[in-house]
């Protein structure tokens, strides 16, 4: 019951913004541009990278942590993918696996420092953010790495360019698809597994969790690892979408991701939040940006409006009855 209400409520803000978007959508030859399927999928595609980051962030925030490094890790991963494909002539699969592994390890390391040395996640990942950024620049040699496709050496396998395409009759952008799959898996993982109970427990009352024999440190480390892994994935999607590995890309993305999670009803003190909410939060921001740009709203005014809506959306969540695991 509460669960139902809660889920409903985390969608509430999105519904409102969506309706507003429909109302304010510009019309071209009798058709609402916003509702044009191509446009709707653009919204999802545009948010897919942030969305994937936000899913990982959800876990971190659930245990009462935070991960400021995801944006830089995204950049690092995009560079990694590009360099491996173009300069090292890796195949698609090896390159992807290598990058995912790197993201995972980076996250695990941050997890270890947080859990074992007990240093606050904010500061650990703030450092991680700088370190990943530096690595991205060093690794890329400073310049963005262009991904050209073809069989010749120095060119990436065309398969990788799939990330820039649309499937299902040229309708669904692949990144949107990946985002959907990731979110789906995470949502299930967070409902049916014992692991999920442990995640919620740590965020809700770490001492109680420890006394109940929950392997607190291990869970924490895994959660940061997962978040790093997904940041790596987001970076791969990024590189595939833009045919480009950008050492400076993804900066500030961590803030968008955190915002999505909080708008989705999570508490930064941990123990409350759901993937469904996070996805709703991400889409809310995406829809908002889209409709504002569709109407050519001045970029500064956009910033203003987005800022206000974010607060309002977070406010909506306050009406929520206490969350459930």
């Amino acid at each position, binding site marked *: 019951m*509460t669960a139902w209400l809660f889920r409903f409520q985390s969608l509430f803000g999105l519904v409102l913004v969506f309706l507003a978007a429909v109302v304010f959508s510009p019309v071209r030859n009798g058709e609402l541009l916003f509702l044009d399927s191509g446009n709707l999928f653009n919204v999802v595609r545009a948010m897919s990278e942030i969305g994937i980051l936000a899913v990982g962030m959800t876990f971190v925030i659930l245990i009462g942590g935070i991960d400021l490094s995801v944006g830089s890790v995204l950049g690092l991963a995009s560079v990694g993918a590009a360099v491996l494909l173009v300069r090292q002539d890796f195949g698609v699969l090896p390159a992807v696996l290598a990058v995912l592994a790197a993201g995972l390890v980076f996250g695990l390391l941050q997890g270890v420092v947080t859990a074992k040395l007990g240093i606050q996640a904010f500061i650990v990942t703030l450092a991680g953010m700088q370190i990943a950024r530096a690595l991205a620049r060093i690794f890329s040699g400073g310049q963005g790495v262009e991904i050209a496709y073809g069989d010749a050496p120095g060119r990436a396998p065309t398969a990788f360019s799939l990330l820039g395409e649309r499937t299902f009759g040229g309708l669904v952008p692949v990144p949107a698809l990946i985002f959907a799959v990731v979110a789906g898996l995470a949502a299930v993982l967070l409902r*049916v*597994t*014992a692991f*999920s*109970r*442990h995640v*919620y*427990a740590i*965020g*809700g*009352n770490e*001492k*109680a*969790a*420890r*006394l*109940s*024999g*929950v392997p607190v440190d291990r869970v924490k480390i895994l959660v940061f690892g997962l978040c790093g892994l997904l940041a790596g994935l987001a970076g791969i999607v990024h590189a595939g979408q833009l045919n480009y590995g950008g050492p400076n890309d993804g900066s500030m993305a961590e803030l968008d991701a955190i915002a999505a999670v909080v708008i989705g009803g999570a508490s930064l003190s941990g*123990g*409350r939040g759901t993937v469904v909410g996070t996805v709703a939060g991400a889409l809310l921001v995406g829809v908002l940006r889209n409709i504002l740009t569709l109407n050519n709203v001045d970029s500064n005014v956009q910033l203003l409006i987005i800022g206000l809506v974010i607060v309002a959306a977070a406010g909506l969540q306050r009406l929520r009855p*206490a*969350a*459930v*695991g």
Partner: protein
Amino acid sequence: MTDRAPLVAMTGISKSYGGVRAIRDAEFTVRAGEVHALLGENGAGKSTLMKVLAGEVGGYRGEIRIDGEPVRFGGPADAQRAGISMISQELDLVPALSVAENIFLGREPRTRLGTLDRRRMLTAARELLARTGVDLEPKRPVEHLRTGEQQLVTIAKALSLDARVLIMDEPTSALPPAEAEQLFRVIAELRASGAGIVYISHRMAEIGRLADRATVLRNGRVVAEFDAREMTAEQASEAMVGRRVDQLYGTGHGRADGLALLEVEHLAVRPRRPVPGRREPAGISLRVAEGEIVGLAGLLGSGRTELLETLYGVGTPGRWTGRVRLHGKEIHPKGPREALRHGIAFVPEDRRTSGLALEHSVLANTVLSVVGRIARFGVVPAARERRAAMSTAERLGITLSGLAAPAGSLSGGNQQKVVLGRNLLTEPALLLLDDPTRGVDVGAKAEIYRLLAEIAAQGVGVLLASSELAELTGVCDRVVVLREGRSVRELHTAEAGEAELLAASMGEAATLSGETG
């Protein structure tokens, strides 16, 4: 059966926290099928000794043997695997998780796919809760439970381990009589089934009823061991305190003849947004005269806490009907500051969540309510601040290493005294107390009761919600019985005894708990 090798034998156990030597070379054994009471003043080391046994506290010296085998636990999980489980003094539950999820946290039943087996979890939880005699929906989030209910959940959780050694650290501290009775039945069953039970409590009456053996700790040392069936409360408390304790109650009584201070007439609250599980006042009338000590009795969830919270202006916001007068003036406090301005002070039920900043110094915690007042041009004179804290600490006999010590490092009883002290510093006309002696030792209780009598003598009115019958009859002049948010009876302790009081508070509820039990 008692002459079999003990389940647990602890020998030469010592544990210190920084400077504090919590346990010094203690011996302790638990036999199968016995209830072994562990007694001692606040800070004597009872919890610490048991935390050592339950694997919650490491870094101790000495040896623990289970069935003669030496063990050293890495953590609670180890201890649980060895069949030892502990109901800790602080209610360690996860607010956002459901009752069932809390009970099985860390040991979730799984399906063949390795996923959570919710169905099995719920049915198992229902059985366990039934055993503790509480009728709770296992799906409810724990944060919506009352303190008492939460305590029952921790008990169910401990039962779920069906441990061979079950440590209960003050399991009844938040349980009113009826619920406590049910717990005693459970303990009897466990004992019969051959489990060893360690029972920590500051309620002497319970010890007499339950325990086979009793060990007394003082300043971390084992100072006495009794056959609990022969032991008298006097012997026990003398061993605990190290001197004769002049009898607990009786000193307590204030005057019933004072001028009307607090008058509550048909008070009812219709909340703007009702909070599930809260028992808002639904027709309460009572009266507290200056210098009078009035008790509030009732079952779990009868609405005692809510009444006190409402009077202090921290109840659920909503419409009041009925009237509340203080010194004849009608009042309707909207918050603590307003209540304090009226001269109302409030000692909340749970000192850890609502009473103290545990990381902060005793000094800071004690003077918090008055720093604003003693400040000149916003500046707090350090000397006056210290003096205020110091005198309070002395007045309440708070034992501490220094005013700079973190409140969290004090034992339960001393923590409670700090909260009480803060409230007295505000020099209230009316003092609201919600289970103020919860987890407080006999000695400290005696001091607190003396204190209440003292301030009552100075004309302060006291409204005291308590779950302990002896306390109500012993300390109060009158006791008002609440049931489902209504005041249903009023007893003069001069005439009425504990039995009468228990009957009154249970009312028809008695039959209810009979069914579930």
